[in-house]
């Protein structure tokens, strides 16, 4: 019986196309304090390909952030499966998944305020366990790649503007060269000019570096630049 289940799972995984990095199959999520028929998201089926930008759109309470937390391995789905790079997330150590396979960018940046910009990035490199010879130099390169001056490296993040902090957060998410970037309202706190600059970075990451970028948003500006939009509806 157990063998049959395993075979079924393998056959499902092989069905996934080569360029699909993440596949969500019938995923549902229920909060621990919810009643038996109360779901935050229910039976979601989305596929995400390499080299593309996706937007997940929906009204408040539609489960956007919940879906993002499932994709980024902060939570496990109650039902269904999420397959990343051919592997079921249930079989993967989520700490390792988060520190080496996926980069997460939040609306509120989530940087450590007592650290400098470069220290935040280096911390992420350390967490991934990557052996990088000159981590500080690598951090500066990453900062430059997202449009930050190298002189900001030793500045405490609280002394940086919102846009600069978000760039540091993106640089941090790129520090271990993940295959996928997940961003939750990354431009929600930024002005239009900065928003456009940040979106350019995401476009570059997807279209030039072949990464899969998933942005949870309800900003029309973001939806304009993405390759595909998934509309998430509130579970009734």
């Amino acid at each position, binding site marked *: 019986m157990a063998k049959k289940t395993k075979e079924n799972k393998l056959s499902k995984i092989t069905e996934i196309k080569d360029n699909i990095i993440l596949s969500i199959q019938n995923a549902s999520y229920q909060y621990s304090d919810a009643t038996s028929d109360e779901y935050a998201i229910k039976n979601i089926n989305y596929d995400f390909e390499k080299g593309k930008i996706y937007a997940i759109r929906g009204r408040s309470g539609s489960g956007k*952030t919940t879906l993002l*937390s499932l994709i980024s391995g*902060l*939570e496990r789905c109650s039902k269904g499966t999420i397959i990343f790079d051919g592997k079921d997330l249930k079989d993967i150590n989520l*700490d*390792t*998944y*988060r*520190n*080496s396979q996926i980069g*997460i960018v*939040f*609306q*509120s940046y*989530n*940087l*450590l305020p*007592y*650290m400098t910009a470069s220290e935040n990035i280096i*911390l*992420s490199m*350390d*967490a*991934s366990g990557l052996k990088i010879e000159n981590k500080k130099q690598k951090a500066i390169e990453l900062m430059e790649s997202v449009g930050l001056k190298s002189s900001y490296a030793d500045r405490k993040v609280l002394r940086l503007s919102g846009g600069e902090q978000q760039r540091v957060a993106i640089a*941090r998410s790129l520090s271990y060269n993940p295959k996928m970037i997940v961003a939750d309202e990354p431009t929600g706190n930024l002005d239009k000019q900065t928003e456009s600059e940040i979106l350019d970075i995401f476009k570059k990451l997807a279209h030039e570096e072949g990464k899969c970028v998933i942005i949870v948003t309800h900003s029309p500006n973001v939806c304009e630049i993405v390759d595909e939009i998934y509309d998430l509806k509130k579970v009734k």
Partner: protein
Amino acid sequence: MFIFKNAWISITRNKGRNILIGAIILVIACACTITLAINNTASDLIDSYSNSYQKELTLSFDRKQMMKDFDTKGEEGREQAKEKFENIASYSVDDVTTFAENDHIESYYYTYSFSLNGNSIEKAEIETESQPGSFGGRPNGKGQNKNSLDFTLNGYSSIESMSEFINGTYTMNEITDNAWDIAFDGNYVFINKELADYNELNLNDKITLEDESGNTYEFEIIGIFEDNEEEDVMMSMFSNSANTIITNANALVSIDNSNDSIKGSINSTFIIDDYENAESIQSDFYEKGLDETYVVQTNQEIAEAGVTSVKNVKSFATTFLIITLLIGGVVLFILNMINIRERKYEIGVFRTIGISKLKLTTQFASELLVVALIALIIGCCFGATMSKSVSNSLLSSEIENSITSRNEMQNNFGGMKERPDGNSENRGGNMPDFNKMSGTPNIQAYDRVDAVVNVTVILELLVIGLSLVFVSSLASMISIQRFSPLTILKERS
């Protein structure tokens, strides 16, 4: 490795919080060092004092039980109890040998005693009118002559049993060259110098004693001793032991065996390995035929009397240590809980970037460990410098309490009066020695406990410190396990 780097960053960043935690641990460490040092030194002191005494076990009547029989059974019961008392089966030298066959008994000795009249010698005595039964008259001597015979003969089984010579009550004044070669076998005796002078006796003279039936027994004098005890023998010029004749147990047992009219009594002492085994030894004695009116008694109370105040200080130190640890542990736990709540966001970020719960717990525990180790070292140094003075001050106050309590008791008996020279003396004549009374504060053998911080104390302190760190780290461990990174970051948003 980066976990420890993070821990160090966090320690230097949160100076105020870590100084507070460090100060609490420092106080705990200081208190622990002092109490542990007092405890260990006091234990060593008590052990060494107790070890300086042989662990002795003796047999005596269970007087309490007998008195109970008298009290509760009415006239008839009292008669029965009296009869029972008179018919208590005494035990013999052979019984003592049998009793001594016990794994917990290391050695034994005994004294065999009975009384005889003088035949060739006279009792050292000058009668006065007030003597018989009058107040302040001559008290009876050691080994009281039960049947009003002239001389008490004490026969010792070995040199260890000659307690009066061991404790210095008697000292040998004259002795023959081979006295100790023959002292424990044959009819040889040591007599009191007063008796010797009274009867003009010298070494190697022979004396003859007789029992109530007129049978005579000859002994040779091989030693003359002096009684050093200062006694208030008011109506007599002789000491209590003037008519005590010391010989060996074998000689007396053979006299006893040959004559039914002599009723000797035996007083045995067993050297045991541990006081804790006294009860099992008593059971063994009963199984071997000892009458149950006898009970075993140890010299534990006397052996430990000199360190009563040290014991009290030790017990106080232990209680103080437990209370300090409990309060310290709770305070540290709460402080850590608050600390963790303050650092919830940090935990959320760490978890989001994929730092495992184990690594995070290690980081938080290491932060506390570093602070605790520094505080423990400083606290240990402070404790080491203070332990001597604190322990001695505690002990002196404890001794003062004992003295006050004893003086109060003395006052109950009439008290002390001041002499013109500034010293004090007892009122009401010869006051009892309160130190020898059971249940009263005893003479303090030690008036100093120089509490020393040694390797044992440091190791114990380290174990306590690490346990405290572990207990207070539980706060962070529990929180890290419970916190969901997404919830934390949502709250922040």
